[in-house]
Every structure is written in C-alpha cells, then in structure tokens.
C-alpha cells in the first residue's frame, strides 16, 4: 500500500490530467466531457504508478497495456500520455482537428501510447482478453487493464467476453466498469437497466470489488490488492459521477456529449488549477 505522500502525488497527477483534459475541450468547444471526467482518476492511478510502462518505448513488448473500451474518453488518456512524455503536450490542442493524431476515439496507430483502437462499444473486452492471453503466453507477467462504461454493458459482446475471461482464468486481466449511471439518452436505469452489475459479473465468475471511482488512492489500493491476491480476473466497479470535476457539465442532466462556451470551460480550468495548487502541485 502506498504511503500517504504517494496518495497525494496521485491526487496531484489526477488534477493535472484534469487540467490538461479540460484545456483540450476548451480549445475544441465540445466533446465527450462527461465520460472523460468520470474515468479520470482510474487513468491517473493506472498511469500514475500501477502500470509497467516506458514512455520512451511505447512498443515495449513486456509492458502492461490499457484498453479504453469506452473509446470516447480518449481525451483523458491523451492528456495523461502527453504528461508522461509520449508526445508533446502542445499536441493536445489538436484534438479532433483535421489531420490530428488525437481523434475523438482511441486509435493505436495514430497516438503513441494507445494500446488498442476502440470506439465501437463492447469490442474492448475481447481485444483486452486477447492481449492478456498473449501476455500469458509470453510469460512476461504483464497485466492488461480494461475500462468499460456502464452504458456499454448493454452490448452483448461484453457478456461474451465476461463469460470467457474467468473460464480461461485470466489473472492478468483487471477490468473497470465506470458506473456513472448515465448513458447517451439518459440514466442507465431508464434506458436499459443494468441491474446488479457486481452480481452479474460475479455470476460469470469474476472477482468483484467496488470503490469510489474519484478516489485515486482507493483505486490504486484496490488494484494493488487484486494483483497481490494472484487471483482473477477482477472487475472493479467505479462509483462515479459523469462530468465529475467539471462542475457545469456534472450538473447537466444530459452530459454525454456537450457543447459549451469557451469561457465557461476556461472557468473550470481555473478552478482545477486552484485545486491543484491547494494540493501543492504545479500545472504542467
């Protein structure tokens, strides 16, 4: 378990990621802000220390890998990768612009550090399983991490993969479900109620944990415990708020894809900057 100073470092890292992600959106004037914010602390925990990676060697065979199956949260991952040095931070300004390496949804061949192309929901669980199987065959001890949305659980392919991974005893696969309770058209319970997500995964043979998805230290500790157990696959249910940390978006009833005035987003950037300073951190 990391020391408290380590927890503080992770919180600073998360706020720094938020700062850069919100700047990306401010530049653009629209985007999938809600889901990008709800998964943010998980990305911070993974890339802030959990993952065995080397930004100088994005193609390092023995690295841990991350599949952002809810591919529309790409902007959070891009900010993280830029902060780690996979590509220049200035490139974040090109999000979604013609010719960019940072498309709306994750693309492993455009963006250094992105491990799998996603965007058609449900597919990431299968590719993550394939990667985890490959890592196991390599004997590298590497892990695959997977993030899916709770709306994404509507997809049948999720449950094909959910059935397969425990059957193959994939102890090197750790999945996260971003349970923000909302999908594009409204609350998940009104569109297609996922019912008891933990019970469903448990019934498929997964080991299930639940954490506050905005507590980066709790996520870090949950994953560390899961790895230490030597068991798996694990699914970690993240209790989250769609748009968390970007107040005007979090307050919107419908916030999957939003348009906004630049000034409004810059105000959120400023608030984030202040939170970061309160944590004793500096902006990137």
């Amino acid at each position, binding site marked *: 378990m990391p020391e408290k100073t380590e927890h503080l470092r992770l919180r600073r890292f998360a706020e720094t990621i938020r700062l850069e992600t919100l700047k990306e959106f401010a530049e653009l004037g629209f985007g999938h802000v809600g889901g990008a914010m709800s998964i943010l602390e998980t990305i911070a925990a993974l890339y802030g220390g959990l993952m065995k990676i080397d930004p100088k060697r994005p193609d390092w*065979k023995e690295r841990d890998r991350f599949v952002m199956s809810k591919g529309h949260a790409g902007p959070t991952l891009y900010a993280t990768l830029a902060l780690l040095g996979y590509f220049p931070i200035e490139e974040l300004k090109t999000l979604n612009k013609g010719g960019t390496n940072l498309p709306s949804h994750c693309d492993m061949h455009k963006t250094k550090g992105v491990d799998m192309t996603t965007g058609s929901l449900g597919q990431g669980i*299968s590719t993550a399983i394939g*990667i985890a*199987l490959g890592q196991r065959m390599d004997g590298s001890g590497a892990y695959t991490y997977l993030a899916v949305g709770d709306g994404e659980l509507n997809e049948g392919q999720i449950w094909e993969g959910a059935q397969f991974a425990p059957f193959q005893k994939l102890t090197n696969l750790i999945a996260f479900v971003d349970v923000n309770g909302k999908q594009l058209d409204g609350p998940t319970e009104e569109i297609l109620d996922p019912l008891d997500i933990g019970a469903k995964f448990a019934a498929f043979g997964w080991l299930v944990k639940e954490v506050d998805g905005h507590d980066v230290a709790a996520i870090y500790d949950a994953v560390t415990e899961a790895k230490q157990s030597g068991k798996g696959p694990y699914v970690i249910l993240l209790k989250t708020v769609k748009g968390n940390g970007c107040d005007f978006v979090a307050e919107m009833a419908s916030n999957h894809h939003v348009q906004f005035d630049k000034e409004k987003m810059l105000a959120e950037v400023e608030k984030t900057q202040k939170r970061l300073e309160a944590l004793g951190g500096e902006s990137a």
Partner: protein
Amino acid sequence: MRTYQDEPVMLRETLAKTMIEYAGKDTRIVALDADLASSSGFGAFQKAFPDRFFNCGVAEANMVGIAAGLSSTGRIPFAHSFGTFASRRVCDQIFLSGAYSGAHMVIVGSDPGVTAAYNGGTHMPFEDMGVLRSIPGIKLIEVTDSAMLRGVFDEIISSPAVYYLRLKRKVTTAVYGEGEKFKIGRANVLREGKDAAVICSGIMVAESLKAADILESEGIKVTVIDMHTWKPIDEDIVAKYAKETGVIITAENHNVVGGLGAAVCEAVCKLSPCRVIRHGIQDEFGEVGTESYLKTRFKLNAADVAETVRKAIKL
C-alpha cells in the same frame, strides 16, 4: 490441358495440416474456433498445440476481438467459423478490432455458398465476401484446392493484413498440381481463348473449365481465369482479357450483388469497358439440399455456365 478430379483429402485437412506445419516453426501462429473445431479441422491443431488453441464457444464476435488482441501481442491468429458467422455476424469486429487496428489475422469462413448444403439457407453464405469487400485493406481469398491453399500460405504469414479465407471444408476438385505458383492479388489464367473470358473462383473454377470443354466442342474458345483473390482484385488481368475478348462472364458461388461479378465490373469500368455478364446467385437467399441439388437449383453447373457464355457471345 487442365484436369479436374476430386481431391483425396478434404480441404479442411489440408488447412489443419498446413497450419500445424507452419506453427511448428513459427510460434506466432495460434488458432481459435467458435465451437466448430470438430467441423473445421482445427481440432487437429488443438491436439498438436493445446496451449495455442482457444475454443471461444458460440461467441464469434468475442473470438474475432480476441484474435485482434492476440495479433497486437505479435501473434498470427487463425479464427474459424462458418462463412455466414465469420463475416456478416462479425463484420464490425473484423472492421474495427481487426482491419482498422492493423491486425495481422486470418478469418477462415467455411462452407461457401451452396456447399453449406444440409445446413440450409440460414448457413449459406452468398454474401460473405460482399459484406467484407468494403473494409479497407482486407484481403479476400477464395481457395480453389489444396495446392492453392498451401501455395498462398507463405505470403499470408509474411505479409501482415486481415485475411478472409473462403474455403470449402470437404472434398473439393483439384485443379492445380503441386508446386504451382500463386500470388495473392494475381489471378491464374488456366486456359486461353479469344471468344470470351470466364472469371471465376472456388468451386466454379472446375465448373468453368468443364464449361470451356463443352464450348470448345462447339467451336467456341474461352479464356478461364481463376480470380482467387477478390480483393485486391487483379485489375490488369481483367483489363487485358476485356480488351482481348470483348466479353466477360463472371461465375461465382455467391450473390452477384457485391460479389466477384461486381468487383470485376468495377475493374472493367475503370480500365477497359466491355460487357460483363454476372453468372451466380441472382440476389436470392439459399435453401436446404444436397450440394448437387443446390448447384442445379442455383445454376452453378458447367452446362449453366456454358449457356450463359453462348448467350453472352450472341448479345
């Protein structure tokens, strides 16, 4: 003169044997099936390499995604299902997790067209190649016989892409001798004649050769081209014979909409316009029966091809 006679082994046996042979020297090769390993011959691969085979159960979308993930770790997966489920059911997975992601993997779609026979219309892929043909960069190959299957294997392993191998599982007709050369994207011209060109693949190669024999006895000389690769199609050969014969007949065990006939028309329109008569499934669903019954029902016999050629020449 080309001969045509039933092969002593089923094509699936050749596939499994070839995969096992290559896998013995190349640890990248792995195999997946969707609860059809005992039908596809992949069971033999499983016996030879139990740690490199994954039965995904009846979950084709997951299987294709897993194959793509394995590819991203440096493996070359072969994933099989019946052609219907290996194409239309997993089109989005082949598109995004596969081709868009730059995967190197081989989707094997078995029982093409009428060879699905007793499984009937639900299992009869007249659309598999058409469904996949608009995916950028995908390579679509209909395998004629065992010699061809072995002949394209080196290139499949050494040239990364998403491949779709359309092949009959059971006994097929041998057209090629051992050691003949094949290049993906380069058609094989099997006989030459100036009156018309028949462009075909799969089970229609033997039927077209037989049709050429029938026509020759009537004084009509036709070129027969095995267009095993539907994508990328061999435009040069199409253009050459469009110019030389002035009339092309395509013969396919597939819907003419979106199929080989359509692909040939695109090449002809682009390079050397001429008449193209598309002989094949005329936008219908399949149905149940023996292969022999279905070949008659859907006009896929040599006599049917010959008749189409006669009419085309008179047009």
